[in-house]
Each structure stands twice: as C-alpha cells, then as structure tokens.
C-alpha cells in the first residue's frame, strides 16, 4: 500500500509540474488459451513526457503492441494501469482515446473514400463540427503537404501517401498525445523523413509523442528518451547516449542487444 501511495505522490507532483502525460504502471497481461498461457506484459512501467519523443524499442513479441493496445483501452490489463493525462485507460477508454492521436500497428484506408473524406470522418468521430472542423482539416492537409491527394479516392495510394493520410487522420483533432506503433514499417527514405520532420515539429509545440520501433538509427536520431522492452518487462531506459554508456558500447544497436541479453528477433 505504501509503495502505491508513494507512487501516487510522485505521480501527482509530476502531473503538477505538467511533465508526465502518458504513464504506464506495473502492467501485467497474459493471454490464455486451452493449451498455454503467454505472458505478454510482466510488470512494465514507464512514462512519456510532454515536449519529448519517447521511443519504445524491443524485439518482436516483446509486448510493444500489447502495451500500446492497453494504452488505447482496447485490452484490459490483468494488473497495473495506464493513464493518459491522468485518465485511466481501462476505466474510461473513450475519455483516454479522446486525448490521443493514434497511428495503429496496421493501418488501412477506406478505399472508396477520398483522403479529405477520411480525415473529415475521423475529425467528426472526435466531435468536431462546422468551421472548426473545416479549418482543422485544411491545416493538417497543408502541414503534411497532401493537397493534391485530398480529393482523390485512396485506392491506389502508395505506402508513403497512405502513411500521410493516416497521420493526418490521427492528428486532425490536435491531440496532446500522439502514439505511433511502428510507423516507419514499409516506408521509403523520403516518407520516413517526412514523418520524422513532422514528429519533430509536433514535439516542439510541446506535445507528448510515444512511438515503438525496430529501427535503431531512427530511434537514435529521433528519440529524446528510449525505453527498451524485453519479455514484457522494462530492460533499460534513458537517452540513446545513456543507454550506450550503460552497456559500454558506442552503437545503440550493440547496446540494445546487450541490454536485452539476446540478439533474437532484432530487425534493423
């Protein structure tokens, strides 16, 4: 009880300072089927702060997607909690989602809608109407430089174009917090750079960004803080520099392998 209490004190102080926007505390989650029980999260805790890009790095099957899905309120944790701006994601999933911009693990587009209509759809789902909505859509379209895609149906869009539209629909309601699940998968260099620039711009505006990735270079270049997850637990956290020092390596990739204690499932 005392531990929980002191955590609460720390949390309240941090919130008072306005630092922690996304908090994951002692999350435990296991999936059971007839034959076996798979432990996906085994007491994972971390925080992501405003004005920072926090990267979750982990091998395949480390529990990244499960952790993020708990954050969206799609999965219920067996133990522990996840909060967004102080809202508990399992108790009030709709409230938590309203504070989030989400770029999910696998994203698809509505092939028969135009890019503009899709962005409009998601803006309306966040309760935007009238002129506010119109302005927000036009702003995000201009920000991502997708004016010429706006009124085309999304069937036949390239992977990069799809990423931009997904990004636009996740951000149209200007969420304070932005969560991306492996957003660069399948993107070419140019699209990756667009995404990176956009995330940096977003960070400068004081938003909280949390994103999971496999790609070391990207995490090293982009993230202020890195959380390394292995076997559903926090393996290490810190700036990319700190992690390298912790492992006594110069390259983040080497540090990563050393910190998770295996090179299994690492994709660069």
């Amino acid at each position, binding site marked *: 009880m005392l531990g929980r209490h002191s955590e609460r004190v720390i949390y309240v102080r941090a919130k008072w300072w306005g630092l922690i926007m996304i908090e994951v505390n002692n999350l435990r989650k296991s999936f059971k089927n007839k034959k076996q029980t798979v432990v996906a999260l085994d007491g994972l805790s971390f925080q992501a702060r405003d004005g920072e890009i926090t990267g979750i790095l982990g091998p395949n099957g480390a529990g990244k997607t499960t952790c993020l899905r708990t954050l969206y309120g*799609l*999965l219920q944790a067996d133990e522990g909690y996840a909060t967004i701006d102080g809202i508990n994601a399992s108790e009030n999933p709709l409230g938590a989602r309203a504070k989030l911009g989400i770029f999910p693990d696998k994203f*698809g*587009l509505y092939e028969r809608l135009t890019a503009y209509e899709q962005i409009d759809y998601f803006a309306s789902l966040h*309760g935007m109407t009238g002129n506010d909505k119109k302005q927000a859509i036009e702003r995000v379209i201009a920000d991502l430089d997708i004016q010429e895609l706006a009124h085309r149906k999304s069937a036949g869009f390239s992977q990069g174009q799809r990423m931009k539209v997904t990004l636009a629909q996740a951000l149209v309601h200007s969420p304070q917090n932005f969560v991306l699940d492996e957003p660069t998968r399948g993107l070419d260099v140019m699209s990756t750079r667009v995404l990176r620039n956009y995330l940096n711009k977003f960070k400068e505006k004081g938003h909280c960004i949390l994103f999971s990735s496999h790609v070391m270079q990207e995490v090293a270049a982009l993230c202020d803080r890195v959380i390394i997850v292995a076997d559903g637990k926090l393996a290490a956290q810190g700036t990319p520099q700190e992690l390298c020092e912790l492992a006594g390596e110069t390259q983040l990739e080497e540090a990563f392998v050393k910190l998770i204690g295996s090179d299994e499932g690492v994709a660069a």
Partner: protein
Amino acid sequence: MIQFKALLLKELKEAFRDKRALMVALSMGFLMPVVIVAMSKFMIKQAVETPAIYVKFTGAEYAPKMVKQLKDANILAFADVPESDKKLWDKRSVEVIIPETFAQDLQEGKRIDVILRADYSEKSLAAPLRRIEREVRNYSRSIGYKRLLVRGIDIKILNPVQLQEQDTSQPSSNAMIISLMLGLYLLMGAFVSGQSIAVDASAGERERNVLEMLLCQPVKTQNIVLAKLISSALIATLSISIMLSLTTIAVGFVDLSKIGASFSLDFPTVGALMISLVPLCFLAAALQLFVGFQAKTFKEAQSTVAMLVMVPTMIPLALMFIESKPDWIEWVPVSGQSLIMEDLFKGLPIEWATLATTTLLTFVAVTGLVMAMAKRLQSEKVIQSLS
C-alpha cells in the same frame, strides 16, 4: 450525435460507391419482376392452351373413330409433326398401341386394351399424358353410354352422387403462382440484397486493416455496429421497394383473367408488406454482420453468409408441411412475416396484432444481435485477431 451521423454517413458513402455490391443488391429488385412475369405467362399458357401432342400410333387403322376424336383434341399422329419439333417428340416417344382386334372386340363387347407407353417420370409430359388419358376415357365412356341408351337404360344411374364444387377462395388467391413466387422473392430480397455490403463492412474492413483504427477512436462499439446495420438494412429495403413497385407495374402485363384470377398490389397491401419486410431487412443485416464479425477472414464470412439464404427459403417451405400450426409460429421472425404475406396475397384482412407482435419480436432479436456484436468488438479475442 455528431459521431453517429459521421459513422452512418461514411457507411452509406462506402455502400453506394461499391458499385459491384450495389449492383448485386439492386439486381434482385430489378430482375425478380421480370422473372415473375415471364414465369406466370408461361404457366398461364400451360394451364389454358392445349398445344399439339404428337403420338406414335401403332394400329391407328384399327380404330379410325377414336383416332379422329383424339385428332379433334389436338392429339396428332407422329407422322404429322413439323420438322422443328420432330426431334423433341421423337425423344419424348409417346406411344399409343391399338390392338388388331379392336373392331371385332368392340362388336363383341369384349374389353379392349389400348396401351399408352411413355416415360411417366418426365415432368413436361404430365399434362399431355393426362390429356390423352382423358380423351380415351371420354371416347370409351361415350360408347358405354350409347350401349346403355340402346338398352333403354337412363345413363343417370351411373352417377348416383354428383359432387358440386363451390370455391370460396377470393379471386386474387387464384393467382397463387404469382403470390407464392413474389412472397419467396421478397423474403429472399430482404435477406440477400444487403449481404455483400454487410460482409464488406464487417469482415472486409477487418481484412483491410481499417477496423483497428476505428476501434481506437473514442466511439462506442454499439454505435459502430448500429451504423453498419442501418446502412446495410437500408440497401436491402431499397431493393425490396424496387422489387415491389416494379412488380406492381409488371403484373399489369400478365392477363390473369384467363385463369379466372385477379392480382393487384394496392396501396394498403404494399404498405403492410413493407411493414412486415423492413424488420426482416434489419434482422438479415444483423445476422450477416454478426457472421461477418465472427469470421476470421473475408472468404470465411462470404461462405457462411451464403448459408443464411437458407433461412428465408427453408422456413416458408417448412411451414407448408406443418398442418396444424401452433400460435407461436405466427410470432416468430421470418415465419410470422411469411404467414402474414400469405394472408395478404390471399386478400384476407390484415391481423394488425399479429403483425405488431412479430415486428416487435424481430426487433428484439435485432437488438440482441447488436448488443452481442458490440460486446464482441470489445472482446480481447477480436482485438488479438486484428493482427
């Protein structure tokens, strides 16, 4: 409300832009009236006209009078068959064998065996064979009557009891062919029209990875399901409205008076039909979405949904075999509506209480399915199977 409007608008936009699914949905509405008219015309023709029958006679020369009577009834010798029908009648091979001793046996008052040989299992021959039988029997009876008359006996003694048939059915119930077909097609239309749209909106969206994005939004799953349900049910409703209005026009081109029947879809009938069918469109959409969300892949959903067609086709069929129907059959969805439609086509007055009960029960079933789906979309099993 803003959310729900956006959800519904998006579903409708997608449904109306999916040209192929929409075509399938509405084609039933456009095709069925044509099928109904074509089939009823064909059936009326069969019932009213006496087309020529070509028979292979053996020993026609022994009974010229009987052959003449058959000829008067348009039952002709195979030798006279026109070239175009020759192959057909050769294959059908209807034989009438008259014995050599015909004239002599007739004179001596012995029994004469005339043989009619054909494939009795061949459906298209049923009517011609019946006609041949009738004509031969008539010929035989006329000779018998003459024999009695000659002996000074009143032929009335052969018919001590005469059955007088009085048909109490409404004139419109004679158009049973049309109403049976229309009833079945309307049920099918309600069940099949929205099918591809419902599968696309459920299993299709999951396969295209758009469902996860939607589930991550601050939207109640119940509203997601409801929007998809309304969109798909609306398409089905549109399809049956087209079917009904086109049939009303099309039936005008069929001359039902030939078989002493009348069939018209007036405004109250159409209204009552719509009241009983629209809830079925919702039930069908709910069942299809349920299957769609339950299935692991688009393909699986498609094959399972195809089995749902059995519901509207089997239930009316099963109803025909139940002789004493228990009350609850009138209330249960699908069978209730099917019975109400049957009454409507027979021209019987509408039982509003029964209609209200079955409508209510149908919507209870729809609500149950929607709640089950909304719950299922929150379940971990569904979330886990997203990737």
